[in-house]
Every structure is written in structure tokens, then in C-alpha cells.
């Protein structure tokens, strides 16, 4: 907007701002895309409140004849929702903070403490963060078997930690390296030891990155399927993803309750995401990109 255009004192017809047709067109394109993206979620919800008769007769996008909220009760019951959600929550509640702590400590050491082999170690960890889990599933199964930790929620946390840490170290490493050394030096001059520096100076500065990683890790842990399906067996130990797949294969034709279960299974993560959304965007800006 240049300054020349608006001179209201001129007697001529006021120059209106030209209609930004491109802008409007772009907005419409975005809005349509957003609607498209929202469609599957809408359809899922629609299906979850329909009765079997409705599904067989009316179109998927039509409003239900009767609002079958009973589907949700069915889903809770058949899918053993509370038990599996409890399992997922327990695992995430332990794994996420613990993993972040371990990763932060390691990233700190690699970034701020000078020692031989730090660089190679960082490379090793970086490479490890890039390989797919499925490569090691067979031997992982055997390792857990030998530790007698198969079919155990707490046992599952160990490989979860192992697979979550490399990426977090990678991100936090980049973040920590960007912190000016003057801060650390002045603290040392004041007599702080390494731990104090870590805990009170470096770590608080990483809050945005930590918050972003927290959200990412919680979501990833909650949604993990491959390792859970290999290492967990009895249905009382199932996590939510296993329950969704089990529901889908065992009661695949109960579309109403199935979609209700899917909807409910995503609620906890949705809540966490929405709550921490703000930090996530900040953190992505600060940490992930820098990393």
C-alpha cells in the first residue's frame, strides 16, 4: 500500500482500494481445500451416529435418521476402551517425560561438553534416528523375550525410549549449540558446576523446543503400532492403536461403533495437541528448524 493512493481531500472520486481478486481466489482455494481435508473427519462422525439401517439405506453424508449415540456405548464396551486408553496413557505418561530428560541430558553433553568422540557419537545417533523400526523388529522381539519383558507395558517403554531419543537428541543438540557461550562462561566464573549449568541455564532456554518435542513425542507414543503389535499379546495389555486394528478386523462390519471408537481413540491426542498447540508452533520455529 503506497502512500500516494489515499488522498481523501481530493475532490475526485475517491480511489477505492482495488479489489484483490487474486487474494479472494486464493482464499477460496484454501477454503475449499480445508473443506476437503475436513471431509473424512466429518464422514467419520456422521457414520458414528448412524444405525446400521441408516448406513445401508442413506448416503454417507446425509444426516442420520436417528441419532444413534448408543454406538459410542457399544464401542466403549466392545473395544474395551477404558482399559486400552489407560494402557496408552500409562505408557505415554512415563515414557515422554523420561525420554525427554534422557535426551536433553545427552544432547547437552554432546553439545556443551568437550570430549573425544563427541562428534562421532552424534553422527551415530543421527543415523540411528533415520532408520525404520521394522528393520529391527525380529531381533527386538527376541531381546524382549530373553529379558522376559514380552507382553509387558513397562517392557514396551524401553524400546520406545530407544527409538524416540535419537531424534530428540538431534533437535536439542542443534538448539543447545546455538546458545551463546558467554552465558555458560559467566556462570562458570560464578562457580557453577556442569549440572547446575545444565539444569538452570541451558535447559530453561530450550523450553520452546522441549514443549514442541513433548507434543510430538506424546502423539507418536500414543499412536505407535508396529512395536506394540509385535511385543504385546494379551488384550488386557493392548494400547489404543492395537484396539483400533482389533476392532476393525473383528467387528469390521459394525461401521457405526467402529467409527465411534476411532473418534474416541483420537480424543486424548487431540486434547494434548490443542492444549499445547501454541508451544508447538513456537517450538517448531525455534527448535526443529534450527536443528
Amino acid at each position, binding site marked *: 500500500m503506497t502512500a500516494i493512493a489515499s488522498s481523501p481531500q481530493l475532490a475526485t472520486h475517491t480511489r477505492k482500494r482495488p479489489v484483490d481478486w487474486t487474494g479472494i481466489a*486464493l482464499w477460496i482455494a484454501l477454503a475449499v481445500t480445508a473443506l476437503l481435508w475436513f471431509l473424512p473427519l466429518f464422514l467419520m462422525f456422521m457414520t458414528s451416529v448412524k444405525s446400521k439401517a441408516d448406513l445401508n439405506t442413506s448416503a454417507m453424508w446425509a444426516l442420520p435418521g436417528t441419532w444413534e449415540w448408543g454406538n459410542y456405548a457399544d464401542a466403549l464396551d466392545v473395544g474395551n476402551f477404558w482399559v486400552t486408553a489407560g494402557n496408552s496413557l500409562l505408557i505415554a505418561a512415563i515414557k515422554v517425560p523420561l525420554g525427554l530428560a534422557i535426551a536433553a541430558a545427552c544432547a547437552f553433553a554432546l553439545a556443551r561438553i568437550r570430549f573425544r568422540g563427541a562428534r562421532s557419537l552424534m553422527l551415530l545417533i543421527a543415523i540411528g534416528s533415520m532408520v525404520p523400526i521394522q528393520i529391527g523388529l525380529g531381533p527386538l*522381539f527376541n531381546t524382549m523375550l530373553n529379558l522376559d519383558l514380552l507382553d509387558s507395558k513397562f517392557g514396551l517403554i524401553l524400546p520406545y525410549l530407544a527409538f524416540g531419543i535419537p531424534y530428540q537428541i538431534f533437535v536439542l543438540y542443534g538448539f543447545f549449540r546455538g546458545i551463546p557461550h558467554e552465558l555458560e562462561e559467566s556462570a562458570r566464573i560464578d562457580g557453577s558446576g556442569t549440572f547446575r549449568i545444565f539444569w538452570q541455564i541451558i535447559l530453561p532456554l530450550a523450553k520452546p523446543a522441549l514443549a514442541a518435542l513433548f507434543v510430538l513425542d506424546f502423539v507418536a507414543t500414543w499412536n505407535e*503400532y*508396529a512395536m506394540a503389535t509385535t511385543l504385546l499379546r494379551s488384550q488386557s495389555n493392548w494400547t489404543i492403536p492395537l484396539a483400533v486394528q482389533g476392532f*476393525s478386523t473383528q467387528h469390521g462390519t459394525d461401521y457405526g461403533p467402529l467409527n465411534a471408537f476411532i473418534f474416541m481413540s483420537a480424543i486424548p491426542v487431540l486434547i494434548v495437541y490443542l492444549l499445547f498447540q501454541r508451544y508447538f508452533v513456537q517450538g517448531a520455529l525455534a527448535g526443529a528448524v534450527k536443528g
Partner: protein
Amino acid sequence: MTTVNIITQGRRKRRPFGSQGVGTAAPYIIPALLLYGWFLLYPMLDSIRLSFYQWSGFRTETPTWVGLDNYKRLFTEDAVFPTALLNSVIWVVLSLILPTVIALLMALGLNQKIIGRNVMRAIFYIPAVFASITVAAMWRWIYNPTLGFVNQLLEAVGLESWTQSWLGDPKFALASIFVANIWQAVGFSMVLFLAGLQTVPEELMEAAKLDGANAWQRFRAVTVPALRPTTVVVIILTIINSLKVFDLVVGMTGGGPAQSTQVLALWSYTQSFTNHQFGMGGAVATVLLIVTLAIVIPYMAWSLKGEDK
């Protein structure tokens, strides 16, 4: 300023005292290394080791050494392996093009202050919050041949001849799964691009505008260079994630029909746990590992070189 910076360590003249040596570092790195080594590194290496053996996986049987036999069988006799390899490669290539470009466009669009921006951003990101196995279940329902949305819509608008068995026809199955992948994958890349767009220097933008550059020229001259670090990250994450694809295929087709949607990660799992051939499974896993490293390492090296101007 924002660099992917793991190798570049300037030599320092003044060493901060008290913060050097393995001894100091040890307590911080040991828990991570222990977990990493035992539950990630060791299984990976063991997979490679197993690829030289034949083993059913049952505890009662001991593995027997077969040398390169598994690899020979993999490349000459395994009828599914070529499909799995091809599909994995196709998946990576398509992932680098479609979801990435869409995500960039979304980010550019949402970077302006427009009405409903936050809502739209949330809508685009929320699919990423769902578990892949859940996305699979949702889309399987959408693709249902009789009651599913796609075919119902086609029938409703009179395009009944276009209805297909989206997940049951080898011609369409992989593409159908990939559509679900796009739906889920754009969110995360979009957020990264959005973050990266915040680093575009305002002054340069203004200067370009004053110089009379149009939108496309501004994009090329100012935005693209500023987005380079972000793009590097997006690309590497996309590659890694697309090589990992597993849950989506398991949930939507199980690898079928006729193993036409098999991918390396799933075929390795199938050989090991379903067919009880851990040696073959290990061989497929090793191939996947090699493919991953072959793509990732050169890319990392190239991007780092570009950074050290």
C-alpha cells in the same frame, strides 16, 4: 544462522574449564547410549546378522548358517520382493512431490493474515495427530465398494461407471492408500514450512516489492533461499517417514491384493513373523537399511556442504 550443524565445530582458543572430558560427560550420555545401544542398535545389527541364517523363529529351532543364500533367493526367487522394492521407491518419490508441494502451498497461503487462518491450520494439521492405523481404518471405510463415500458420491453424480474396488483392484490399491497418506502427511510439513516462512527477512521482501518484482519473482529470489534450511529438514523427514510406511498398508490392505501393495518394511515383517523365515525377513530389512542409508547419507552430506558457504 539457522543451520543444520552437526559437523561444523570451530576450533576454540579458550576452553571453558570444568566442562571437558569423557568423565564429565559420562553420566549424561550413558542412559541414552544404553537404551540406544541395547534396544535400537543391537536389533538392527542383529537383523543383518540373521540375514545370513535360516531360522523359523521358533525357540525350539536353532538358526542355521546359509551365507548369501537368502539374498540370492531374494533377488531371484522371491516374487514379492521386486514389487515391495518398487512400491517403496515409488512411495518415496511421490511423497517428495505431492504432499511436500501441497504443504508448501498451504503454508504460503496460511502465512498471510486471512480470515479463518487458525481454523484452517488446525484442520490441515489434525490428520497428523491421528495414528496411521486409525487413518487406515477411516479411509478403508471411505473406500468401501458399496457403502463407502467415494463410490456413493460417484453414483450420486451419475458417474457410476467410474466406481471401482479402490482397495481390491491392484491397479488402484497403492494409489488409494497414497491418497490417505497425503491427507495425513501434509500437516507436519506444512507446520515446518510455516515456521520457516517466519524467517524470511522482511526487509528483503519489501525491497523486492519496491523493485517491482511480482509474486513469483519475490518467491524465487527471497522466499526460496530463506526456506532452504527448512526444506532440507522437510525433505529428509519425508524420505525417512516414507521408507517407514507400515501401519497404513497393514490397516488398509494388509499388503494385498495379491501382494500388490507390499512395501519393504511390511514384507520384512511378513517374512519374519507370518512366514517364519527370519533369515529372509532379515535380508529384506537389510535391503531397506541400505536403501535408507544410500538416500539419507549423501543427502545429508550434500546439504551440509551447501550450508558451509
